[in-house]
């Protein structure tokens, strides 16, 4: 029982981190149709900037608040000058471009921060652990478990009920027509891309106290977030939520029950889900 709860919490906390990262990916894909390979790199950049702010100010919160907007600002430039010329062209070009961007950013951080691993400490209030089921459990992980759903529900409500959300969905289905009904699509797209980047960077900043900060962070996370987004259904928030949870739990329980299959588990899950539900769990049938 105790082992079960420990695994459950492990899975939940990892799942929530995945969820935070995947949300940005799914938003950008859902609205702009751009599969952003560099999303993981923006995540990494978020972690590095958080690290930098912690070094300067000693406060994790400052890093969490100030870092992501910088990443968002950078991605405004990326969207404006790199992605924009490619809209309406073949999707594979965007893939290649963001892939190039990923190489650039991943190696770029090494030029600035070096190749070494760095460690960011969790903030004072969230460090330490609490006793749970006769085990001690890190407070910071519980924080992630609670934060994930809050952010998720907020975003979901935003997309479903606000005018902005509807505009985004309209632009997502037909960019040109949205413009014809008066939506400022270029601005909207820039905003969405920046927002996705901001989410990625928030994920990165939140991950920093949890894992070492290094140039490989992004590469490691990107495929898992792709899997989350796809099994959930591209562009779907509830999908990303469920997908992340399933993947997180699979990870923790898989470690215990199928250690030999560990590495293949996410892919097996992916294949099974896509063969049963072609558009992912929450994907709209077309």
């Amino acid at each position: 029982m105790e082992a079960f709860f420990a695994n459950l919490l492990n899975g939940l906390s990892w799942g929530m981190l995945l969820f935070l990262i995947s949300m940005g990916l799914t938003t950008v894909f859902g609205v702009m149709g751009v599969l952003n390979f560099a999303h993981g790199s923006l995540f990494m950049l978020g972690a590095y900037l958080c690290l930098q702010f912690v070094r300067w100010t000693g406060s994790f919160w400052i890093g969490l608040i100030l870092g992501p907007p910088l990443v968002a600002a950078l991605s405004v430039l990326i969207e404006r000058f790199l992605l924009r010329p490619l809209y309406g062209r073949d999707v594979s070009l965007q893939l290649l471009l963001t892939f190039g961007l990923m190489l650039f950013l991943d190696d770029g951080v090494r030029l600035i921060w070096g190749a070494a691993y760095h460690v960011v400490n969790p903030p004072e209030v969230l460090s330490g652990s609490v006793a749970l089921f006769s085990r001690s459990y890190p407070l910071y992980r519980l924080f992630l478990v609670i934060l994930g759903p809050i952010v998720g529900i907020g975003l979901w409500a935003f997309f479903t009920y606000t005018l902005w959300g509807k505009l985004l969905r309209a632009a997502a289905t037909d960019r040109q027509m949205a413009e014809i009904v008066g939506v400022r699509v270029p601005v909207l797209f820039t905003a969405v891309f920046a927002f996705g980047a901001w989410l990625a960077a928030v994920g990165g900043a939140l991950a920093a106290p949890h894992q070492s900060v290094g140039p490989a962070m992004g590469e490691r996370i990107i495929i898992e977030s792709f899997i989350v987004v796809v099994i959930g259904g591209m562009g779907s928030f509830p999908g990303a939520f469920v997908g992340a949870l399933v993947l997180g739990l699979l990870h923790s329980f898989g470690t215990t029950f199928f250690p030999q299959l560990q590495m293949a588990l996410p892919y097996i899950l992916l294949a099974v889900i896509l063969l049963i539900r072609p558009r992912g769990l929450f994907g709209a049938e077309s």
Partner: protein
Amino acid sequence: MLSVRELHAYYGDSHVLQGVSLEVGSGEIVCLLGRNGAGKSTTLKGILGVVPPRSGGVFFNGVEITGRPVYESVRLGLALVPEDRRIFAGLSVQENLEVAALPARPGQKAWTLERIYDTFPLLSRLKHRKGGNLSGGEQQMLAIARALVGNPLLLLLDEPCEGLAPVIVEELGRVIADIKQEIPILLSEQNARFALTLSDRGYVIDKGVIRFEGTRRELLENREVQSRYLSV
């Protein structure tokens, strides 16, 4: 109100509009007639900038809008109902209208959602259905309604009665005549008979060139134009 001067537009290398000029004054319905492939849709798209013209000018209420982003022209008061309707498939009927809503100008009788539903009772029944699941005709209705909630000063209608049942076409004719009281319309049509029952004036376009211009009467009476360019 709208004045188009010497518009040239290309698709790749093909020169589709070869100097189109036309005018729409307030309070009138002007139709743009021509057989298919003549360049009607391209003219409408060129006016809005959806197909950016290579040369020529578009002036709306005295302001040059050539080369501006599409949404700016729309916010200045132009609205287009495209021939292929382009309903936002994933949004409900109501949401399709909400995203297109723009504030009315002072003195204008605003097209609110209520007014739309009064005018198109069909839509009010379908309020919550997904746009992509509507039938062809329902989509056409929605497309027109969607243009109206933007409270335009001028409406560009591209073949609105395509795919509509005769009863609905009649209905639509009435609606257009109604709208005309407030909003001038540039109507692109192949169906000259339908267009000419509604319009005050018309242009005939062929191969990207305006071949004839005249009042409804002149158009109705000019057999030569009809047989050469309109195949009536």
